């Protein structure tokens, strides 16, 4: 044991965290803009120097015994998801891809067209998740789609997670055309049974074996014990650890995690989300315990303009004190200046506002909703998605929350709203903050030493 160095080669910043494994404490962190165009190691070394300086001030010998990394540089793990019916296998494929820490570029349904094939070539995904049909269900469409994908002019691994009855044929078609294809259990073997874990695991393996290399990230990193997983996956793992615990350390139970970033806002819930009260009929695709949603139009830098437009459309701007004209200009600037760090009062205020709106809209989209159907005797409530009203804890991470002036005021946007009672958000949650930005680091450590990782979380996440 000794000191662990945990690295996140992020899309904008390379972040480093040092953990004392013996004392089980956080020692310090540093960051530097990711230098993926030239050589990721340049930025890494700058950040490392800074971290070393900070630690040596504490009179600790710097000798990193364990070095682990995750990465979302070079666009992260870009996935195209293909399914059959939009609300069924296409939706299941999207949930699986996001759950594996991927960035979903686009979701396709029904038979792929030649134009869609060309579009996929332009999108250049790192991986294609091909699903469609329950086991014993529709075979025609997924075989057609395998044919279309076999004509792709780009080299991209394809994960087949559809109807098992057409797996052999689809595999042959893809192999004949020199496509790399792996077959895995169907993500929706029965209409009422979602089975995404095997596909997620396979995606993670492919990320390690093929994708990291293809992105030119691993060549010069040999002194690190290589990149273990996509960054979102590390954060998701930390959340799961905190909620569920390990064999020896208890977790804190159901949890909702919100990560407000520059380009996206991610929400992940760890809860079965079964209706807390009676009188509900559950409809739609079965929901996984860990469900991640990513909002590509909500973020406080790159996506700031989109966020503002969405907010205006959804009438979130009414209560805002800042004059709209001024805000438009500022937000436009932010969206072009993605490395900008707010320092003066006004900029900090704008960031806070953007983070709060991102949180509110992202959570509204994530949680389940009920629709009231008026039947002849009495109204019936139909639940789509997860009922998260009883979730006791909301955890905030990501620059938009952590660096905000008043993180609690942002996280409070996740609370159930009596004016919109059909949006099933937590009613009276406690708030946790990832103040030291250690979620990704703990997710990495959890691979090797889950108990210690969980104790670190309990020590360094703070209730606000």
């Amino acid at each position, binding site marked *: 044991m000794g000191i662990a160095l945990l690295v996140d080669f992020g899309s904008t910043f390379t972040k480093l965290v040092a953990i004392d494994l013996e004392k089980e404490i956080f020692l310090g962190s540093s960051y530097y803009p990711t230098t993926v165009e030239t050589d990721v190691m340049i930025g890494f070394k700058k950040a490392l120097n800074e971290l070393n300086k900070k630690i040596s001030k504490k009179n600790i010998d710097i000798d990193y015994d364990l070095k682990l990394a995750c990465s979302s540089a070079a666009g992260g793990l870009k996935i195209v998801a293909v399914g*059959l*019916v939009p*609300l*069924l*296998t296409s939706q299941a494929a999207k949930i699986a891809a996001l759950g594996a820490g991927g960035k979903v570029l686009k979701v396709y349904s029904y038979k792929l067209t030649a134009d869609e094939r060309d579009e996929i070539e332009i999108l250049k995904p790192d991986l294609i998740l091909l699903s*469609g*049909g*329950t086991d*014993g*269900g*529709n*075979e*025609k469409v997924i075989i057609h789609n395998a044919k279309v994908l076999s004509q792709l002019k780009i080299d991209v691994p394809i994960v087949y997670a559809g109807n098992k009855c057409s797996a052999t044929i689809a595999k042959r078609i893809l192999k004949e055309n020199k496509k790399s294809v792996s077959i895995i259990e169907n993500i*929706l073997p*029965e*209409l009422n049974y979602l089975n995404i874990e095997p596909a997620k695991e396979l995606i993670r393996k492919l990320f390690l074996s093929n994708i990291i290399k293809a992105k030119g990230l691993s060549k010069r990193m040999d002194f690190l014990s290589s990149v273990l997983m996509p960054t979102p996956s590390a954060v998701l793992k930390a959340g799961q650890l905190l909620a569920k615990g390990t064999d020896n350390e208890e977790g804190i139970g159901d949890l909702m995690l919100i990560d407000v970033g520059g380009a996206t806002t991610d929400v992940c819930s760890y809860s079965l989300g079964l209706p807390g009260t009676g009188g509900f*009929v559950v*409809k739609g695709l079965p929901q996984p315990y860990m469900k991640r949603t990513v909002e590509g139009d909500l973020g406080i830098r790159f996506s700031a303009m989109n966020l503002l437009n969405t907010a205006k459309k959804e009438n979130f701007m009414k209560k805002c004190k800042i004059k709209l004209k001024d805000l438009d200009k500022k937000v436009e600037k932010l969206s072009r200046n993605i490395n900008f760090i707010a320092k003066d009062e006004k900029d900090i205020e704008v960031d806070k506002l953007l983070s709060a709106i991102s949180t509110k809209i992202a959570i509204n989209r994530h949680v389940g909703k009920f629709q009231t*159907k*008026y*039947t*002849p005797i009495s109204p*019936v409530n*139909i639940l789509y998605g997860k009922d998260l009203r009883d979730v006791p804890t909301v955890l905030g991470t990501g620059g938009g929350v952590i660096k905000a002036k008043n993180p609690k005021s942002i996280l409070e946007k996740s609370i159930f709203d009596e004016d919109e009672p059909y949006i099933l958000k937590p009613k009276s949650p406690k708030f946790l903050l990832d103040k030291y930005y250690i979620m990704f680091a703990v997710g990495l450590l959890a691979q090797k030493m889950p108990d210690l990782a969980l104790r670190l979380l309990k020590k360094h996440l703070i209730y606000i």
Partner: protein
Amino acid sequence: MIAGKRKLKIVLGVIGSDVHAVGNKILENVLTEEGFKVINIGVLSPQEDFINAAIETAADLIVVSSLYGHGEIDCRGMREKCIEAGIGDMQLYVGGNLVVGKKDFTEVKKIFEEMGFNRAYPPGTSPQQLIDDIKKDFNIK
């Protein structure tokens, strides 16, 4: 079961705002026991849920129940939606208590057949009748 090889796949559900769940469960059990693969989408099911389920599972037949008397309104346009969704030749059966009160059933039957249902059943039809007809329509011995 078709040509002795694979199981016939049936999407089963109760359409519209109808909550009568007992008959649905009974039909699921009886049809499953008979050897069919039943995909039961349950009560309160809109037309789209039947159709989506049928596409994803490549079902051979959709059996619609309507017990509360509003079957005519709930079922209207279902055949057209099937055509639109690319499963226009799907077999559609409907039964339960299709209309309010005790109307002459030949008239009711005509209405549902004109709406594109292949078979429509009067109240009190036994599940066995349904099974016999399925076997007849799909050439199952």
